[in-house]
Structure formats: structure tokens, C-alpha cells
């Protein structure tokens, strides 16, 4: 079976400073995977490398078997950054339409997909509203709708819980679980360990650019009360060794 993401020996440095060192990682299809780490650990750098926004110094990344340098590898990726933003003169419908066109979706099919996505997040009444008139939460919902445009088999969400109210968080968890049931792979980059524990199948911890753990959440919970204790111990231990 082809892995949704396969990272082999990735190194990335900025000048003399290593941002990521020899990272190798596999994310199986149909799983919810979380990348954890402290601020500045290299999580966003890794996400950017997966999306080919950064060029690695060494190593390779494959998305569903296709090299990440090939633009077709992003055909099946839905990505939402921590703060979704787009040119604010677009309407919600217009922005989603733009993303759909860039994926080569036929107009009639695209129209259906957009209406379905807006309904999924209960923002169908915002369809014709300009993005500049939307609240932060509504804007984030438009971003989430974007994940449903096209046949995205891999969803990458950077800090998806940040800035969401409790209801928004609940809605997002339901959405992610539903996407998993549909066989999609979800790659999360998050700080909210309590939420990750509830929805993830696998986690990886990056600390100072080095991958220190890659394991199943179920295995972690055999020996630890929760993911937070596990995370704290691993990161602290590395700190002591150093």
C-alpha cells in the first residue's frame, strides 16, 4: 500500500542553523496523524516542505507515491494554514470557485461541490458575502470548506484548533472524524494535545529539528495517563540529555 506521505532523510537549514535534521517519516493512508512539538521545533518547516513551499537541502518527500516537487502531487491535497486568508474582495463562493478551478474541476461539478461544502459548515448564507466582511471564525470555516473542494485524499491542517471557540472545536473534530471515515488521510500540526489524543491514530514529536518519537496514540496511552504527560516527558528527557 502506498503511503499518503513518505519522508526520507530530509535536512533543511537556514544559513548555519539546522531547522530539520534527517527526518524520516511515513503517514499511512486513512489515518489521522499529528505532528507535535514546541514553538520553533520545525513543525511548520516540515509542513512547508511537504507542500513544496520550501526546497530541502537533502532527502525526498513523496505524496501518495508522487515526488513532492511534481505539482501533480498537490492535486489531492487540501491545505489550510493556521490563519486562512485570501484577497478580501473575493466572495466566499468566489474564493472556493478559484481554488476549484485551479484543480481543474468542471464548472457544474464545482458549483455542486461549493454549495455542499458551504452547507457542511453551515455558512451557505455567506455564499455571496465578501471575505472582508466575514468574522475570524467565519473566515476559518471558508478555509475548511476549501478542504472539501476537489478530490482531496490528504488534508493538511496547520494549527487548526487555534482561535476556535469550543463549538468550533467540536465541529472541527466531527468533521475530521467524518473525513477519516471516508478514507481520507489527515495530517495535523498542533499544540492542543488534549484534542490530538482524542482524534489521532499516530503522532510524531519534533524537538529542535529532530524527530524524537513516532508512535501510535493507543501505544502511548498504555503507559501514560495522557498524551500531555508523554509529550512533556519526551521533550524534557531530550533537554536533559542535551
Amino acid at each position, binding site marked *: 500500500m502506498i503511503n499518503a506521505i513518505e519522508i526520507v532523510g530530509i535536512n533543511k537549514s537556514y544559513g548555519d542553523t539546522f531547522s530539520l535534521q534527517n527526518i524520516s517519516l511515513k503517514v499511512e493512508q486513512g489515518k489521522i496523524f499529528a505532528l507535535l512539538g514546541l514553538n520553533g521545533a520545525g513543525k511548520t518547516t516540515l509542513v512547508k516542505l511537504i*507542500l513544496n513551499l520550501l526546497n530541502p537541502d537533502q532527502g525526498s518527500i513523496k505524496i501518495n507515491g508522487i515526488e513532492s516537487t511534481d505539482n501533480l502531487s498537490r492535486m489531492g491535497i487540501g491545505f489550510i494554514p493556521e490563519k486562512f*486568508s485570501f484577497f478580501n474582495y473575493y466572495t466566499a463562493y468566489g474564493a472556493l470557485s478559484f481554488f476549484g478551478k*485551479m484543480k481543474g474541476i468542471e464548472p457544474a461539478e464545482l458549483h455542486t461541490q461549493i454549495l455542499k461544502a458551504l452547507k457542511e459548515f453551515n455558512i451557505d448564507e455567506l455564499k455571496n458575502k465578501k471575505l472582508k466582511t466575514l468574522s475570524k471564525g467565519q473566515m476559518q470555516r471558508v478555509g475548511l470548506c476549501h478542504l472539501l473542494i476537489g478530490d482531496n485524499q490528504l488534508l493538511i491542517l496547520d494549527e487548526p484548533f487555534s482561535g476556535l471557540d469550543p463549538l468550533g472545536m467540536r465541529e472541527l473534530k466531527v468533521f475530521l472524524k467524518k473525513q477519516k471515515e471516508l478514507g481520507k488521510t489527515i495530517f495535523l500540526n498542533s499544540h492542543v494535545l488534549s484534542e490530538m489524543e482524542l482524534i489521532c491514530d499516530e503522532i510524531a514529536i519534533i524537538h529542535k529539528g529532530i524527530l524524537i518519537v513516532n508512535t501510535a496514540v493507543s501505544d502511548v496511552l498504555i503507559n501514560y495517563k495522557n498524551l500531555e504527560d508523554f509529550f512533556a516527558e519526551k521533550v524534557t528527557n531530550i533537554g536533559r540529555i542535551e
Partner: protein
Amino acid sequence: MRATQYKTMILDTINKEIRSKMLLFIFIFSTLIILFSNGLVKMFFSSMNVGTNSPGNSGPLLLSMMFGFLNFWSVIISTIFGVNSIRSDFTQNIIYQYLAMPIKRSDYYFSRLIGTWIIVYTFYLYAYLASLILFSMATSSWVAHSGHLLSAIMMGLFIFLCILFSTLYSFFGNRMGALLLVGTSWLLITLSNSTFRDLPVKEYFVNFSLPRLLGMIIYTLLPRLGNISELANSFLFQKEITMNLWIEFSHLIITTSFLLWAGSYFIKKKDF
């Protein structure tokens, strides 16, 4: 799918630029300048009593001044819009949204370039036609001829090259830095053009010095913007063309292709 991506990105660029306050300012300012110049032309012709059916001897000079201003103005506009074309995607943190889609970086770059060119060139054509019509009305004679069309085509090329230079510089530094770099390049290209244009190749190395070498490199490796502008003027005023068009166009195609390749290479290698 690639054609759809290009179309979508070009329309997105036009949508972005057309809302620019700068464009509105430029549009109003240019219209005012054209109307003002038209008023001056009218005043000139009536006070000099040159006649109503012919632009007279001063007509070509006034027309030349008007189009000279228009060409200079189009360089400024091309530079501002060229620098802003891709930079605004960085500054608004939207570049990730674009490049996370299944589009080649070079396609993203070229479509932004084409979209910006369409906006600037449309503006140029508007100003050109407005000037032409108003000038014809002021002098009570239709001054347009086939050379105007060729001149406008040459200016289209000229504007494209200005935008291309500006987008290239916008990769390396902030907006002001890029504008300064474009300005410096202009100066160097103009100097090298005027130094080497009428010089036989064997005389390139006479009085050889480092600045002369730099000028020679610029003249050989970069598009000769001065020559394109001169060609546009020659068509406009139906002057005799002294340069070898085959050589000039071959040089233009090769050097422009090189710059397009360089832009595509830089954007491919850039970290976002």
C-alpha cells in the same frame, strides 16, 4: 487543466490589480495630464494661428512631447505594478495558498506576469488613444496612421520587458529596494544603449575600462530597451529605421527568453 489554471490566474491578477488604489490614481492623473496637454495644444494652435486644418510644423513636436510623456509614464507604471505583482502575495501572506495548489511555480509566475501586462498595456492603449483623439481634435486633423499601430505594438513589448525586470527584482528585497534596483538598471541600460548602439563591434574594445566592460555586458546580455523605444518612435513619426531589425529582434527574443528562464529559475529555487 494548465490552460484553465493560466486563465484563472490571469483573471485573478487582473482582479487584484484593477482594485489597486494606485491604478485609480494613475488613471485620474493621466487623464488630467492628457486633458491639460490637449488644452495647451489648442491654446498653442490658436495663439500661433498655425491653421485649423493642419498640425503645422510644431504639430509633430507637440505630438512627440505628448507620446514621450506617455512612454515615460508607462515605464513608471510598469515598474510599480511589476514590483507589486508577486510581492503583494508575499506581503499579504497569500502566496502559500497559491503555491499549495497543483500549479507549477513557473506557471504561477508567468500568469502573474501576463495579467499585470494586460492591465498596464490596456491602460497605455487607453492613454494612447485618448491622446491621439484629443490631439486630432485640437489640431482639427486626424493624425493617426499605420505607424501608430506598429508603435503601440513595440510599446507593448517595451512594457512587458519593464514588468519582467520589475518582477525579477521583486524577488530580492523590499518594494523600495526593488524600485531602486529597477531605476538603476534603467539608467545602466540607457547608458549602455547610447554608448554601443552606433558603434562597430571592432570599436567595442577601444578605451577599454571596467565600466565599459559592464556596459558591454549589459548591452549584449540584456534586452535593448532603448532600441525598442526608439523603434516605437520611428514608427510613430515615420522616421527611417537605421537599425538592423533582424539582428535586433533575434537579440530581443534570445535575451527575453533568458530573462523569462531566470525568473522561472528564481521562483523555483525560492523558499516560501
